[in-house]
């Protein structure tokens, strides 16, 4: 038993030491999410522990996750989940007891199931409260993440070269000489686009649509009772996908189900000119245009937020309808 007690004391000492040292960890190491999942969890935790009073909350998938935060209203929170479901963010708003003035729900992939384990983990009794006053237990303060990110930044800085920007759509492929990848990015994006077309080509089953509307009924109803306003919006996609069975089924189901409650449904009138990286995800320029347009819509709905910092020209999307 001596081993156990000594180990527990060591753990406690390390936790206390890390809590004391955390404020001195450079900002680049703190808050830098290591993976897509970490980014998702970090967004949700920051909302729960720091931004619960945000007047505008956006929930969506990786499509809306690309909206640049600096172009959204300053006090808007984007809970969109890369590789996840809009219902995850919605569930978090409901369970947290928050009552934002406006909740914008991305409707493209609403039949995706929400991440129950992540949501349950966020609200685990006791742990959730402890995480509230002990930031060292939050996703964006993981010690190995901080150490590795700081090391990588230092080495890259020392090497004097830009970092490789990402797997998809990034502009930072720093190739050297005449070396070319086995497949050109166009080939790969073509293959990914084919996969996306296949996904969008499948109409959700009636059971999936019923489950989706059932969950939306419950959560949207709760938010409306709290005095929130709720609106659905579609993220623009490649023109060939706009009338795909998946999008059409989601759109028609939501319009049919919620039209009697007068919930706005914002659609991209024409996505012409907007570039995507793979057919579904907007590139950074297009995402910026949609973010500005959403910010204007929020203003038009009479939601008072902090001054909109991005400015920029008006954009014809999204158009309101329904």
């Amino acid at each position, binding site marked *: 038993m*001596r081993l156990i007690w000594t180990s527990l004391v060591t753990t406690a000492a390390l936790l206390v030491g890390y809590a004391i040292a955390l404020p001195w960890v450079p900002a680049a190491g703190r808050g830098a999410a290591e993976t897509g999942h970490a980014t998702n969890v970090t967004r949700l935790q920051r909302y729960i522990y720091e931004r619960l009073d945000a007047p505008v909350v956006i929930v969506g998938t990786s499509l809306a996750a690309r909206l640049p935060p600096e172009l959204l209203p300053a006090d808007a929170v984007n809970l969109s989940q890369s590789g996840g479901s809009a219902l995850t963010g919605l569930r978090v708003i409901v369970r947290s007891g928050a009552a934002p003035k406006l909740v914008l729900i991305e409707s493209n992939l609403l039949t995706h199931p929400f991440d129950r384990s992540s949501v349950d983990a966020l609200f685990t009794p006791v742990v959730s409260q402890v995480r509230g006053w002990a930031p060292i237990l939050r996703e964006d303060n993981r010690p190995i993440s901080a150490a*590795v990110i700081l090391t990588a930044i230092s080495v890259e800085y020392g090497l004097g070269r830009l970092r490789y920007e990402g797997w998809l759509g990034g502009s930072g492929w720093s190739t050297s000489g005449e070396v070319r990848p086995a497949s050109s990015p166009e080939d790969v994006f073509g293959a990914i686009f084919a996969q996306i077309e296949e996904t969008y080509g499948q109409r959700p089953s009636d059971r999936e649509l019923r489950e989706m509307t059932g969950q939306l009924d419950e959560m949207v109803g709760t938010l409306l009772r709290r005095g929130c306003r709720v609106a659905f919006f579609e993220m623009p996609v490649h023109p060939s996908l706009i009338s795909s069975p998946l999008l059409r089924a989601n759109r028609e189901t939501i319009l049919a189900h919620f039209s009697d409650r007068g919930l706005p449904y914002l659609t991209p009138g024409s996505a012409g000119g907007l570039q995507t990286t793979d057919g579904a995800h907007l590139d950074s320029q297009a995402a910026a245009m949609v973010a500005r347009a959403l910010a204007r819509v929020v203003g038009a709905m009479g939601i008072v937020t902090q001054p909109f910092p991005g400015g920029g020209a008006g954009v014809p999307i999204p158009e309101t309808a329904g």
Partner: protein
Amino acid sequence: MVAYYLPPLRDWQRHTLIVASFVFYAANQPWLLLLLVCSIAVNVVTSHFVYHGSPPRRTTYAALGVGLNLAVLAFFKYSPLFGKSFFSGTGSVGEFLVSIPLPIGISFFTFQGITLLVDTLRVQEERAEFALPHGFFGRHAVNTTLFIAFFPQLVAGPIVKAHDFVPQIVPKFFRDIDWDACFRALVTGYFLKMVVADNLKDHTFWIARQSFKIAPGTDLLVMLFGYSIQIFADFAGYSLIAIGCASLFGYRLPQNFNFPYISRSFSEFWRRWHISLSSFLREYLYFPLGGNRRGGVRTYVNLMVVMLLGGFWHGAAWSYMVWGGCHGVALAVERFCGRYVTLPDLPLVNALRMLGVFVFVTAAWLLFKLPDFSQAVDFARAVEANMGLPPDLQRCFFIAAYSVPVILWHLHHLWGKPVLARVPGLAAVAYGFMLFLIVTNSGAPGAFVYFQF
């Protein structure tokens, strides 16, 4: 656990564990509990007749029981593969076969049923020391149910042999728990799973994405290395958690991993990796086939048969069989060369041998991650063609950081002078540090890799 050790309930310890095991199994897919119960019933009845049947019929009953176990395994595990391979997955037959669900842990509990039947037959035929509790049918049924359904090892092993486990079914006492051993196994197991494997999986999953074709070659190699560490940490972690849990209830499960990545030969690797499966295949397949006692050619054939079936046991895809075949060929070549060449026992030679085995094993894991052969070939092509692209240092550093504990763990064992044992208090600090990282740096929870098998 409190109820389990209460003195008035001591006679109900086995029943408590059985109920807990059924609840544990049913938590995922409740209706599949019926399959587990049926499988147990088949083994209870057939092993009873093997023990009590007339001598000429014992082998028949045993063969019937083994056949039923294998039939259940084949139907649930391989039907989708046959549906896709021979019926194109379309049409009523193809769709039916493809739609059959894979019950969690079926590969493990059917194998344990086989050990029960074979061991029971051996008891009767060879008058071995091990004896099943056949006092009366009810007790036999309870003990057999506990043996097959015992929750720590039910869904992913270690595969326990009847002659190891059944003799342990006796009343247990709280005072007999080795708390330090349980703590060591549980902390190490959870660390390997939650900190190493769960974090690595979020960096290595790109291997299975189309975009690997444009990733830098260095990244691809590092990710493959990371996957090798991940699959070890995931499975070794689960095994240690199972061993620790079982110890809390007074049962000793066999060691499943013994630092496999320091192996100097492929035969040594299979004595260190998934030991419970290797020993099962050796004891219940390789030896009955004749092992190495029937001449050189037959030995090589036996090796290939065992490794091909062992590979196929891992998953319902032809690539798993190829993976087993690769290891079978490696074992056969090693055995053949070993007859003519004896390598000197020098540190440099040993290090090169370890490196060679590790590289081969790691490359073969690609067939686990990419069961589609064409993708595996594309991956190899991308490694070569993209080697000139600058690596994503952050990703490489993350994989390296999460691999360090596994590498250090192996090196610590390799040195043969365990620092943790020699320096007082150092072991406690190490376990304390692991606990700290479990609390602050666990990855996103993911299913155990071997659950799919």
